């Protein structure tokens, strides 16, 4: 009988006195896809970091294909045949695809250590063929789309004949077609004898793709078994320790006639064209579109991060022309960016500092005060963090970088909630967030709207929008191609609108 691909024996890990993992004993059979699910901060990434040699466990041991596995660093894990595709992609945009594939182990010509370019190009080409990425091996990685970059990551694993490939939330920034492509590739790899670990918050996907399921909660192994023993409901119960009957809270807000944000004819050539709509008081307005349809760009322009060349934006009866984010905030706007790592957070700063940053105005004693009221900030940050169930050891000292991926996202949201926004723009607010916390975020959206705020929610998950929104706009290729009231919600029509005009955009060189 072949030995298990990976075995964990009583593995534990603490960060700053907070248990991230306690006593995990788990075995992963070879040539299977193993789905790992758990709430944000449950320890999924940490467990994989231990396997990948990025974190050393406090106690416990591991074996890899029967051999003891005690990696001192990522290089050791690579040598043991483990490839790790991180939650945040780990590529070098300034280097070509070949360089990225072999950055920690080029084929060499001789003992001088000179690179064997021919051989590298050949194997790179082969690996790219396997994963179905058809572009020259010398392309700079920064010129690839996120999906192509992901394929490069997988090619990296394939190119060095990894026996175990870890995919930590690989689908969170892919479109549906790209996901399907990734899934068929995963199946191919599994059939070729690879073991794959698949982490995702999309439970349907996990159930569909995996052969075995592993559920973690608060750093403990709750259950594991073959996929036939699981349903989405059981996974949720195991993950959060209780039953969640509805994935979406009942809608409580009712939109009024008062207009909060009026956008007319906003244009930025080549990016968005002639966008007009109105956001009402108490309304949750959905903005659906595929990635790259211009929705994020629209949000950035509304918030004043990018300029527009034509059109008008009026926020609460105040025209915004050539405005800066500070003015937007002053006019009651808030913007939760999709890209938490680059735009939403100061990674090295503490949790408290991050929360306080956007809310300094409100927490200062008065508008003109120059002193910062630390106690007020601390109280508020604790309250918001509790509402969102943000898991962290110490709000004052722990830096944002050390939070789990989903908790970083919650932090971005927390930060903006503190400004008491009148108009809230959310870009993919639930990406990478667990079911329970998603529910909390929908509830907060509801409550804000019921309290008279207007919310513009951008998402590529149609189901989430139809469940939470009063009205949905569909964007495609920089234009609004559909405007659906709640009574007219119809997935087929909306998807149709989302694909409108795409063929003209498909000209080469438009990436």
């Amino acid at each position: 009988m072949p030995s298990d691909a990976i075995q964990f024996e009583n593995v534990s890990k603490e960060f700053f006195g907070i248990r991230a993992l306690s006593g995990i004993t788990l075995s992963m059979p070879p040539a299977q896809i193993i789905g790992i699910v758990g709430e944000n901060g449950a320890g999924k990434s940490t467990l994989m970091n231990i396997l990948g040699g990025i974190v050393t466990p406090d106690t416990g041991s591991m074996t890899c294909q029967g051999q003891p596995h005690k990696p001192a660093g990522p290089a050791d894990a690579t040598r043991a045949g483990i490839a790790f595709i991180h939650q945040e992609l780990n590529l070098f945009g300034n280097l070509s695809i070949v360089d990225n594939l072999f950055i920690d182990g080029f084929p060499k010509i001789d003992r001088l250590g000179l690179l064997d370019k021919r051989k590298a190009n050949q194997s790179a080409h082969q690996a790219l063929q396997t994963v179905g990425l058809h572009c020259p091996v010398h392309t700079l990685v920064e010129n690839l789309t996120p999906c192509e970059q992901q394929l490069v990551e997988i090619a990296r694993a394939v190119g060095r004949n990894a026996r175990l490939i870890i995919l930590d939330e690989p689908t969170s920034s892919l479109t549906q077609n790209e996901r399907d492509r990734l899934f068929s590739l995963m199946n191919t790899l599994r059939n070729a004898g690879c073991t794959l670990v698949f982490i995702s918050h999309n439970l349907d996907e996990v159930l569909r793709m995996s052969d075995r399921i592993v559920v973690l909660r608060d750093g403990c192994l709750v259950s594991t078994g073959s996929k036939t023993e699981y349903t989405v409901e059981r996974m949720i119960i195991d993950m959060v320790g209780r039953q969640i009957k509805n994935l979406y809270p009942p809608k409580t807000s009712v939109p009024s006639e008062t207009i909060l944000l009026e956008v007319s004819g906003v244009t930025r050539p080549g990016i968005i064209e002639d966008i007009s709509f109105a956001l009402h008081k108490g309304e949750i307005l959905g903005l659906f579109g595929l990635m790259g349809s211009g929705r994020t760009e629209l949000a950035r322009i509304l918030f004043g991060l990018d300029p527009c060349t034509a059109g008008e934006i009026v926020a609460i009866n105040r025209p915004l022309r050539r405005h800066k984010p500070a003015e937007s905030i002053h006019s009651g706007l808030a913007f939760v960016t999709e890209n938490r790592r680059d735009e939403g957070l100061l990674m090295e700063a503490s949790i408290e500092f991050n929360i306080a940053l956007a809310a300094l105005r409100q927490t200062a004693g008065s508008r003109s005060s120059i002193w910062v009221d630390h106690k007020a900030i601390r109280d508020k940050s604790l309250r918001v963090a509790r509402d969102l169930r943000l898991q962290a050891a110490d709000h004052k000292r722990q830096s944002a970088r050390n939070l789990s991926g989903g908790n970083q996202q919650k932090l971005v949201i927390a930060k903006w909630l503190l400004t008491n926004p009148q108009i809230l723009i959310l870009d993919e607010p639930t990406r990478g967030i667990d079911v329970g916390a998603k529910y909390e975020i929908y509830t907060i959206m509801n409550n804000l709207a019921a309290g008279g705020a207007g919310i513009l929610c951008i998402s590529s998950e149609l189901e989430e929008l139809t469940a939470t929104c009063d009205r949905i706009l569909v964007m495609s290729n920089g234009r609004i191609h559909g405007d659906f009231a709640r009574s007219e919600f119809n997935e087929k029509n909306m998807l149709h609108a989302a694909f409108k005009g795409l063929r003209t955009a498909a000209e080469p060189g438009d990436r």
Partner: protein
Amino acid sequence: MNMTAQKNRILLAALRNMPIILFVGLFLCFGVLAPDFFRYQSIENAVKQASYVGIVAVGMAFVLLTGGIDLSVGSNMYLSTVVAGLCIQRFALSPAAAFVICIGAGFTFAMTNAFIVTRLRVVPFIATLATLVAGRGLGRMLSQSRAISFPETITRIGSARLFDVVPYPIVLFALTLLAAWIMLHRTQWGRQIYAVGYNLESARKAGINTVRIRAIAYVVCGVFASFGGFISVAQLGNVNAGFGRGSEFDAIAAAVLGGISLFGGIGSIFPGVLLGAVMIQLVSTGLVSAKVDLYLHSMISALIIFAAVAIDSHRTILLKKMQQRHIRIE
């Protein structure tokens, strides 16, 4: 179809090839101001005088590519040539032995930098600022602030020509460029230097020994600094107490003018740093032959470097922006 994207791409192409554009612009500009600038002799002179700055700048490029900085190169040049000079005086060494000692001193100096930056984790700016001060102090102590002159056997190198055609400093500069290019593009360490400069954390996760790679960059920088110092002394004939002062500025300027990004990970040795170093030299010789007021020289040089750094930042921001604008079709 996409006007802004088109414009951005052209702009980016221009920013990427800025060293060449600047070089041609400067060249023409001084050529018009001072016609004898175009003579072969003056060009050869400019390149020859640029060779030592160029060699130091090549080393500097390694450090800049990892996202660090080395302010101590000028002191390294001074200290290592002082050590070599004193050894010659005391032991009557051959030029080859003096050269080895000079490079050895530079290597030791650089190891100190590497240790402080990578092991003690002091920010490069502060670490090398400290070794800049300490290195010059030590050099002055050893030489008692006296000028040390070098024997004719060594100064001959400064004026000799290979096959009676190409001046030796230029030959050595060319060899340095070649060696550096091979190191950066044809060895694993070189590729990893670019990776580390792009993102240190990602490099660590990719299994790169980031401590070693950064240390290598500082060592290469220090060794090339002492090498540049040796060549400069061979041309000057002696080391005085001010030798090498301000060279860090010239080296960083040459590298940045040559398109090496101060943010790390971007830029190339060839033709970038070559052009950068020659440009620095062109500016000073050009200003002289155009009979510009001496007091204006440093201000004009500063202005040009300022422009180069501004271009660098602009390019970085534009690159970031363009990355966000992925329109996806599927």
